[in-house]
Structures are given as structure tokens and as C-alpha cells.
């Protein structure tokens, strides 16, 4: 196995820079920031008002209870509870958009030919993957800090416990999005364009779920196949009902398997 840490870090950092030095990257950050600004202002802030309103408490209890999210209502950091609910579902989907072009664009343009004379294919795949993880960490940090600021503005005494909970969120969310990034790394090894990579990802989730649904209907034991889908644990994770294996083990194993597939296919493909 030819893996050089320095080259790996260089490739990953180059990806991170791509987000902040290119027009398309900056545009993505701007769109992302505006969306989250709206979410914070009209989603989280309003939801917190509703959660703390005695008029709505019974209704909210009912809704959250029915959705299995009662645990979230017990948190004093209501902003973080709402943030968690939104982030745990939106970041993986956002991730599919963000990571559509990990290697496919460079392969079509021939840029990978310059790169592959200076880095192994494994370093390219892993470096790009790590770079995308860096980008997601950056974006998650921005949103978490903004939510924390809102929390501290409402109730300064909640800042410290909120900060600790934010670190936990960051860890869980990064691990939750990793298999989505790895899935796009894999799809990028055979897709012919970034757009096609996104379509393949959607087909994988939509078509795959239908096929496994039908198989499970015939043979319930095949429900285990659901574990091939990144995000299978998200509902349990959102409700804080997932054990360590489900919230950390499953996505890490999925990530590893997808990256191995990606590397194997990439190592055999023509550039």
C-alpha cells in the first residue's frame, strides 16, 4: 500500500482551499450561509418560542412524542435541540450536493493525469475524501457557533453546557455524514459527470430502498440489507435513541467499505 501522509494532507488541504478560493466554492458557502441564516432566524428562533410557550406545550409534547423525539424536549438548550433535528437530516442531503464532484470533473478534464504522476490513486481518493470532511467540519462549526450564539443571547448561563453538547453534536454529525461523502467518492470513480454522480446517488437511495423493500416483503430477514444505505441510523440518531454501535459503528463501517470499493475501482480505472 502506497500512502504518504504529507501528500495526503496536501491533497486534503487543497480541497478545503477549493471552497474558499474559487468562485463556485464561495457561492456555495454564501448560499449555505443564507439558508442557515433563515433557518436560525425563522426556524430555530421561532421553534424555541413555540417550545417554551405554555399554550403549545401539550401539542409539542404530542408531536415530539409521536415522532419518538421526546428526549429532545428535556434539553434546556432548546436551540440546540431544534438545530440537532434540522442538522441531522439536512447535512447528509447537503453533503450529497456538495460532494458530487470529488474526482469526476478532474478525470473528464484530464487534471487527474497531472495529479496521478505525483500521488497514488489511493492518496487521491482518500485525500479528496478527507478534504470534503474538512469542509463539512468547517460548515458544521459555523452553524453550531451561530446556534450557540443565539442560545447564549437568550440564556447566557446555558452557554457552557451548550458548548459541551455542541462538541458532541459535531462528532456525531461528522460521523453521520462520512458515509455520504464516501458514497460520493465511490460513485465519482465511475460516473461520467458530477450531475450524473448526483443522479446515481438518488437512484441508489430511491431504487435501492424499493428493491430492498420488496425483498424484505418476501423474506423479512433481508431487512439487514438496509445497513448498506448511509443514513439508515439517522431517525434513531435524531431521537437520541441510537446506541454507540448504531450511531458510530455503522456509519464508520459503511464509510470504510465504501472507501475500499472506491479505491479498488479507481485503482483499476483508466484516467
Amino acid at each position: 500500500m502506497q500512502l504518504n501522509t504529507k501528500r495526503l494532507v496536501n491533497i486534503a488541504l487543497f480541497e478545503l482551499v477549493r471552497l474558499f478560493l474559487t468562485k463556485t466554492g464561495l457561492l456555495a458557502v454564501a448560499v449555505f450561509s443564507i439558508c442557515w441564516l433563515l433557518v436560525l432566524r425563522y426556524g430555530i428562533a421561532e421553534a424555541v418560542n413555540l417550545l417554551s410557550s405554555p399554550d403549545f406545550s401539550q401539542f409539542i409534547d404530542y408531536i415530539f412524542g409521536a415522532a419518538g423525539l421526546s428526549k429532545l424536549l428535556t434539553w434546556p438548550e432548546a436551540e440546540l435541540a431544534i438545530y440537532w433535528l434540522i442538522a441531522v437530516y439536512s447535512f447528509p442531503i447537503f453533503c450529497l450536493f456538495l460532494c458530487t464532484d470529488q474526482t469526476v470533473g478532474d478525470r473528464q478534464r484530464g487534471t487527474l493525469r497531472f495529479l496521478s504522476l505525483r500521488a497514488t490513486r489511493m492518496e487521491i481518493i482518500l485525500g479528496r475524501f478527507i478534504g470534503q470532511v474538512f469542509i463539512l467540519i468547517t460548515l458544521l462549526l459555523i452553524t453550531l457557533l451561530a446556534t450557540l450564539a443565539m442560545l447564549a443571547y437568550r440564556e447566557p448561563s446555558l452557554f457552557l453546557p451548550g458548548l459541551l453538547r455542541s462538541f458532541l453534536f459535531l462528532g456525531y454529525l461528522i460521523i453521520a455524514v462520512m458515509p455520504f461523502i464516501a458514497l460520493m467518492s465511490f460513485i465519482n470513480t465511475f460516473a461520467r459527470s458530477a450531475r450524473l454522480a448526483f443522479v446515481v446517488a438518488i437512484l441508489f437511495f430511491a431504487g435501492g430502498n424499493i428493491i430492498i423493500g420488496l425483498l424484505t416483503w418476501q423474506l423479512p430477514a433481508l431487512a439487514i440489507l438496509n445497513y448498506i444505505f448511509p443514513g439508515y441510523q439517522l431517525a434513531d440518531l435524531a431521537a437520541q435513541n441510537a446506541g454507540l454501535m448504531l450511531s458510530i459503528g455503522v456509519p464508520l463501517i459503511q464509510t470504510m467499505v465504501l472507501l475500499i470499493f472506491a479505491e479498488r475501482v479507481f485503482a483499476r480505472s483508466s484516467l
Partner: protein
Amino acid sequence: MSSLIKASGVTKQFGSKLALDSVTFEINKGPPVALVGPNGAGKTTLFSLMCGYIFPSSGDLTLMGKRPGNAHLFGKLTALPQDAQLDPRFSIIHQLTFYGQLQGLSKVQAKKESARVLELVGMGDAANQRPKDLSHGMRKRVTISQALIGQPQIVMLDEATAGLDPVHAREVRELISALSNETTFILSSHDLSELERLCGQVLHLDNGKLTEHSALSQSTNNQGFVTLRLSQQYDDAEKVFSSLPSVRHVHKSQAKEYVIEYEKSDEAFDIQLLQCCHLQGWHYQQLINGHTLENQIFHKG
């Protein structure tokens, strides 16, 4: 001479199409090597195999004793692949610095090195521009510069001067010539006169099969060749040249061009030939000692 590249029975098949048919050759450290052949002959396929972009269907190919794509070759083997482009979104200096860093240079060294290679191809002023803001020829020169980063031992340039204006094409040729003491260049081009000027060894590919030539050759101990290009068509030129005492055979290779086979003697044949032209009142354009590469490849008869 140390062997840099060894290919033994290398075959590449794309589906039912045989792109390379059991190609065997060896390239040693030394003057530039030309890779020639018509479109679709397999030149880019051979380049791609040597760079590790694709893999042979069978046969053995090693560069400095390693398989293509091996990490030991990073920085020692560089290339200008045909039609490959830099990322249009980043500045040129940013990308070249990144490549330098991947080759093991520090960020400061890589930046300095990038500026140096850009100067070599006359693109120093464009360092902070993005590739999409440059013309085709300028982009080509920038991509040539990336192949010169560091101290590569082998540089493969696929159609390096295609699309360049004559002045810059000449500059690139001069650059290759100046660097060929330290680096072995492998060049593919359709401009045979360009390759003739630069290269010693010539690998000729046709329909996936390889033959070797030297840029100017085919003289033996008692037999020599010259290629004479006249400035205009003279009807009886073939007959007049044939009448010279040491001439064995005259062959009109193309319009205004004659390949003359002669018997070597104490007298200088080229002087005799030029005197003959002078006496006839004929003007000549070029006298080449030996066969031109073009004639070797396309006018074997």
C-alpha cells in the same frame, strides 16, 4: 548507458481493437526520443501506459525498474498528456505550487520552482491568472511548465508544440534541447522535421506495431545517402544526378526532393553534388546527410 524504460511484448487491447501489438523497446538516458506515427497508431496509448493512466493487456513495462504509477517515480517522471487541462478555477501558480508540494518540495520551494518553470516557457507574467483566462497556446505552455517542475529524469511530451505559434514552438524546442543533458525527453509530434532536429532514437508506431529508426541514418561503410531539396522543379534532375560518377541510385522522394544513394570514395560526394547543381544553374534549398525521418517512415521503397 543506463536504461530508463523497458517494454517487452506490451499489448493493449480496447475491446476487440488492438491498439498496441506486442511492442518491445528500450529507452536509455540520453538525447530526446521521438514517438511518431499516424493518427490512431497507438502513440497516446503508449504514452498513457508509460504514465500509468491505463494498464497493459499483457507484456511487461518498467520505468527505472518500477511499474508505471509507482510512488518511486513521482517527481522523476513527468508528462504533458494530450488534451489534459489544469483546473480552470485556480490560479496557475497555486496549482503548480500544489504539484511541487506533492513532489516533495516545501511550500516556499514549490512556489519558487513554479515561478521558475513558468519563466522557462515565457509565462511568468501569467502566474496569477487562471487557465480559463488564457489562450489555447498559453495554456499549452503552462501545461508544459508543470512537466518541468523539480528535476525529472524522464519528461514525456505528447504533441507539445501542436497549437503553438512558430515562435513559441521554436522556444519550446530550444528549451527541450537545452534541458536534454539532464533529462531524457520522449516526444510525440506530427512535425517530423521538429523531431529530426531534436531526437536521436525514433520509435515509429503504425497500427499498433513498433519499428525503430534513428533520426538521420542508413549510411554504411561503402554506401551513403543524401537527401537534396531543390528550390524548384527541374525536369531532368533525376537523370543529371544519375550521371554523376559515384551515384548508384536516385529516387525522387517527393516534389523537388531527391534521395541519392552513392558509393563512398575519397572525394567528397556532397561537394560534387553541389558543384553539379551550380553548373546546371539550379538552386537548392537543403542538403541533408542521410535519409530524412519522413522518407525513412513513409517512403521505404
